[in-house]
Structures are given as structure tokens and as C-alpha cells.
């Protein structure tokens, strides 16, 4: 089961990589693979058992897989220190502002939709 699901995932990534070289150099191969798989699932209308098993297995360990990439920060310690306040300031401010804005916008839109449905 797990192997069959994994095979699908790897196949879609390989397709994605081929398309990336052939037609879409601005989109990363794995992302094209994800879009292809999504379209495939839409056409099929359901997620098969092997894919569910493989996807949930991999995604459960996604944080672990991100650790080696995150360790790469040690190479850029100097660049971060050089722009330290710009980086921290921009990250904190933009996060807080967009967090509040997103929540507020979504709530306003949901309320508007509810009002429209009540008064047809």
C-alpha cells in the first residue's frame, strides 16, 4: 500500500520535473507535480487508499524533513546579522498586520454571505 502510494508521488514529481524543463521554467518541479496530482484527484473524484497512506505518512514527518534545510541558516549567519533589524522588524510587523487583516476580512465576508442568504 505504502509503496504504491509512494510510487505515485514520485511519478508525479518526475512528470513535474520534466514539464519544468520543457515548458514551465518558473515553476519548481515538485509544485507542478502537486498541481498535476490535484487535477488528477479532481478528475478521479476520490483519493485512493494507497495515496492516502503514503501522503499522510510523508506529511506527518514534514517537519523532520525541513530540519536539514533549516540548518542551512548557519551558512547565512553573517547576512542575517547584517540586516538583523530590517529582517526582524519586517517579519514581526507584517505577520501581525496581515494576521489581523486576514481574520477581519474573512469574518466580514462570511457575515456578508450570511446576510445575503437570509434576504434573498
Amino acid at each position, binding site marked *: 500500500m505504502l509503496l504504491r502510494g509512494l510510487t505515485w*508521488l514520485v511519478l508525479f*514529481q518526475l512528470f*513535474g520535473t520534466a514539464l519544468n524543463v520543457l515548458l514551465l521554467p*518558473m*515553476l*519548481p*518541479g*515538485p*509544485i507542478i*507535480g*502537486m*498541481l498535476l*496530482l*490535484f487535477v488528477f*484527484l479532481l478528475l478521479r473524484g476520490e*483519493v485512493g487508499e494507497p495515496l*492516502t497512506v*503514503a*501522503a499522510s505518512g*510523508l*506529511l506527518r514527518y*514534514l*517537519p*523532520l*524533513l*525541513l*530540519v*536539514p*534545510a*533549516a*540548518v*542551512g*541558516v*548557519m551558512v*547565512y549567519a553573517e*547576512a*542575517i546579522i547584517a540586516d538583523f*533589524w*530590517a*529582517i526582524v*522588524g*519586517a*517579519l*514581526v*510587523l*507584517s*505577520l501581525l498586520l*496581515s*494576521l*489581523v*487583516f*486576514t*481574520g*477581519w*476580512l*474573512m*469574518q466580514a*465576508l*462570511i457575515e456578508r*454571505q450570511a446576510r445575503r442568504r437570509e434576504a434573498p
Partner: protein
Amino acid sequence: MNLDWPAAWQALIHHPLFGVGITLGTYQLALAAYERTHWRLLKPLLQPVLLSMLLVIGVLLACGLNYREYQQSAQLLIILLGPSTVALAVPLFVNLRRIRQLLWPTLLTLLIAGVVATLLGVVLAWALGAEPMILMTMAPKSVTSPIAMLVAEQIGGVAALAAVFVLITGVLGAMCGPELLRRVGVQHPAALGMALGLTAHAVGTAQALQESEESGAFAALAMSLMGVATAVFLPLVVALLV
């Protein structure tokens, strides 16, 4: 008997699986520390990725290994990131069916708030005097790391730095998101989840799941859609502008 300790030590730290070994070890340590802590203020600081990253860096420095060598010996884990990115299509599909009713508010919020979140980071960093490399790395900070890293690399940023920006953003969002949103009067679970997933990706989604199941579902949806939209449109926009 004369044992050659230094030779054994060298063989150990230069073994092609050393990177995999220390990553697996520190990650499980970090996970255990995270689960055992009940002090809420400390918990976000013990974010497993953050903690195991720091531990791995510590081990590498102590052993005198550089990042390139670690990268080679952790290849087994790095190579799995691609199929994991493809696998994100599965929760996206599952959630898309669950959330049909709020389709328009969701799509509109994604479009407007997604653009605002991305622009705000870049503009603020620019206003505070960061260099172009940092700006391009800052742009995809609101999406889940595999996408952010790929996109950052594509548009002239640095993948590893993008991972760190994403991490800081996620941890901060999960840390103060729910409290902040409640203070400004956002109560709808879908709105709460949307805000957490769209701005704070995976870490925010995990936090939203703790708030309620509906929040969690919307956070997962927002995270996936924001990820795909960023992956598709950000490189296009940058290619057109620069």
C-alpha cells in the same frame, strides 16, 4: 591492546549516514521536549524544527563539520521533500470538498489577504533597508517551507534563509495569533483558521487545530491554497517586474 580512538571518531563523524543520524536523534529529542512542556509561554520556543535545527548546528560546530558535508550526509531526508510537496495535493483535495459552502469568502480572502501579506513583508523589509537578496527571500515567508524554499531559490533569494523566515513567521503567528485575533473581535472559527493558515502556514495550522476542528480545516485549506498561489504567481510576477 592499543585502540585507535581518533580514527574511530573520524570514521563516525564522516560516515555518509552521520547527518541522517543526528537529524533523527535531535528531532526526536526536540519532539519529546515539546510534548513534555506544559508551560504555555515556553512551548512556542520549543518548536521542534527550531530546536532540532539549533541542536544539529551545535553538533556540527562541536565536530568541526561544515554545512556542505552535513548536506551530503543528510541527503536521504532532503530527497524526500519533493514527494512530500507533491503529497500536499491530498489534504488540499480533501479539504476543498469539505469547504464548498464558504467558497467565495475563502477565495476572496485568499486573493486579497494573500497579496497583502506578501507585499507587506517585502515593502517593510525594503523600508527598513534590507538588500535585494533578503527581499526576494522575504516574499514567500507566509507559505509552507518546501514551497517557500523552492520559490525563494527561483526568484533570486536563498532557500535556507527562506526556511528560517518561514519558521520565525509560523512560530510567531501560532504564538500570538489566537489571542490577538480574539482581541480584535474575530470569533468565527473559519476566519480564525483562515488567518492562521494563510499567514502562519503549517505551524499556524497545527495551532488552529487546537482551537477547533473547523478552524483546523480552514487553516489547512488556506495553507495549501496560499502555497499553490504563491508558487504559481510569485515567480511569474517577479519575472515580469524585474
